């Protein structure tokens, strides 16, 4: 479904990715692991550009509008599916149907009591879950997320990973929590210095080896 063959990427003065070949079939739950600066975000971007319309996205900086309410930020996942007048009306006066839909997603990520709080007043972990709720609201089959649980505690991380696995058929997650990657994903791709240095199904990997190379 997503294919890269001998792809390279570089920023103005430095090479970010070298000779990347990667095929991701439908239904796979893939974790990209690697230290900071290894090229995870760049690889996500390369893959994302292949099918931008089908992919729900959780960027590393969340991409939330801090002055709007949590409700409106989550609703934004569906803007493309409604006529403009409906979106504008809903911006001024939240409509019943979307409020119900958003509320049901928020209850899954344990944010339902914050429905109309401005995003700016939420904590970092709450904002991260808001970005995830928006991605769920997009209702797609594929999710791309850059460090989706980096600001969450262990219990919430597990909750969110479980929800993501249920809601999306295909996952591509950049992570540096190796335990979570092993627990929820079925394929691990390790990046080091812009190259793929490991690409194995989860079952054949040993935690300690991964920690030595990719742990922070």
């Amino acid at each position, binding site marked *: 479904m997503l294919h890269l063959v001998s792809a390279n990427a570089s920023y103005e003065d430095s090479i970010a990715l070298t000779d990347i070949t990667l095929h991701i079939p439908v239904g796979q739950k893939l974790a990209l692991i690697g230290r900071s600066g290894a090229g995870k975000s760049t690889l996500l*971007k390369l893959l*994302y550009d292949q099918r*931008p319309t089908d*992919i*729900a*996205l959780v*960027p590393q*900086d969340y*991409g939330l*509008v*801090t*002055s*709007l*309410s*949590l*409700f*409106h930020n989550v609703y*934004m996942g569906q*803007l*493309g599916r409604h006529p*403009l007048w409906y*979106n*504008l009306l809903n*911006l001024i*006066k*939240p409509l019943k149907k979307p409020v119900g839909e958003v509320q049901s997603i928020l209850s899954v990520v344990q944010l339902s*009591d*914050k*429905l*109309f*709080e*401005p995003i700016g007043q939420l904590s970092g972990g709450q904002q991260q879950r808001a970005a995830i709720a928006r991605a769920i609201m997009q209702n797609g089959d594929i999710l791309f997320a850059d460090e989706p649980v980096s600001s969450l505690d262990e219990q919430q991380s597990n909750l969110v990973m479980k929800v993501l696995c249920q809601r999306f058929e295909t996952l591509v997650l950049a992570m540096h929590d190796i335990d979570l990657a092993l627990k929820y994903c079925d394929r691990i791709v390790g990046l080091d210095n812009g190259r793929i240095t490991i690409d194995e199904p989860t079952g054949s990997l040993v935690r300690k080896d991964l920690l030595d190379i990719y742990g922070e």
Partner: protein
Amino acid sequence: MYAKTCLIFTVNKLTVSKGLRFRRSPRWKVSWLFVFVALACLPFADLSISTYDPWAELGRLFGGLLQPSLVAIEKPFEALLQTLAFAILGVSSGSLIGFGLAQLFHLRLVRIVCASVRAIHELFWALIFLQIFGLHPLTGLLALGLPYAATFAKVYAEILEEGDRRAYDTIRQSAGPTSAFFYARLPDLWQHFVTYTGYRLECGLRSSAVLGFVGLPTLGYYLSTAFLEGAYAEVWALLILFYLVIASLRYWLRPKLLPLYILIAPFIIANDSEISVDNISRFFTQDIVPLPLRNSEGLSGLWQWFTELFLTEALPGIINTLLLTQIALVLTGLIALIWFPLISRLFFERFGRLLGHLFLVIMRSTPEYILAFILLTLWGPSMLPAVIALALHNGAIIAHLMGRYSNTLSLRVDATAGMNRYAYEVVPRIYNQFLAFLFYRWEIIQRETAILGILGITTLGFYIDSAIQDIRLDRAMVLIAITAALNVCIDSLSHYIRSKLRLSIGSQQISAESRR
């Protein structure tokens, strides 16, 4: 036991319902408050078009655009040189004096004097100095230099305030305050001063052009003559020259060349009129002394004179000024919200943005006074031309600032496009800045509203101008003082609202441009 459970229950319910009820933000409510005030003002404002065939005249005006007359280039060129010379001398002397005053800005007296001087528009200063010095170049210089010095003092003081003082505090004892200032403060802040001063020079060019409308030999003088003669081709030649000068500002206005310009400028503005000492002493000892005092009618006479002036001229002037200001303010905001995407990379590609920039540069470089003058001649005297002129000019300025600010935003790659992007992603992010810019311009719009009275709209400027025409300078001075007081009031109200809503303007660069 039961009571305790109950209490916990209610507390829980309260915290839950806080996030569950949709509450509109204060900035939303304030925005609508201003819209409703403006709507309530509408029925009381005269917005009629009284000329017989306004559109045909507008057609002839734009017809002139197709054939800008270069035959009459001699006059425009002379006017342009005068405009430049007055602007450069006025702004640079204002900047020097302002810099000195900024060092004393901690003194309450200095702040009050500056606020009062600032509250009186350049054109009113020009009207005053015309009475004292006649057409001597000093009139134009002081009319520009004085209010500019007061504004420079305030903004320079703010820049000094915001700067880092640590290096200065460390060496002040050993080096002495002056050396310490030049070594430890000025180098860091120099760029801010230069940026702001350069920006003000652009404002100074507009002000200098407009001073021509009250008789100085700058652009406005030739423009109004050409316009009233119906020589539209010449009007366009003048305007286009003016736009070219402003657009090319950064190519010829170099700090290194400035001393040269300052040396040449006095020779350009020099004329053979002389300052009459008699005139000056008569102005201070007779002209501006209230009539009842001159006739020794005592305090009761003075009171009667004042109440009559207040009720028949000041009050209607104040009401009309406020009406016009509130309507123009809301329309300005609306126009800014519509226009800012024109230069934003979030909405348009490079070529589209280029056209947008061109459009906004023209709209904001045309002084509102000139716009109002043109529209007034086309549509006849009512508030309509003034509202439109103020909204177009100020709307373009705010749109420019907002567009630039929106270019600093980074949206996520999957953000929607078009109107959805505008409504959900962009406007909520920049609305605070938008309101801050708008409230900054509130007082400016009001100052300009008063001034437009000179064109025949019955705001305060109308009564001031009439009093001066009738050589009743005592009345004119009182009305000018009232206008200034009104501006100071609006300024502090705007300050109050901004601090209540915690509105602040983003980067230093943009904040420099939004101050005026």
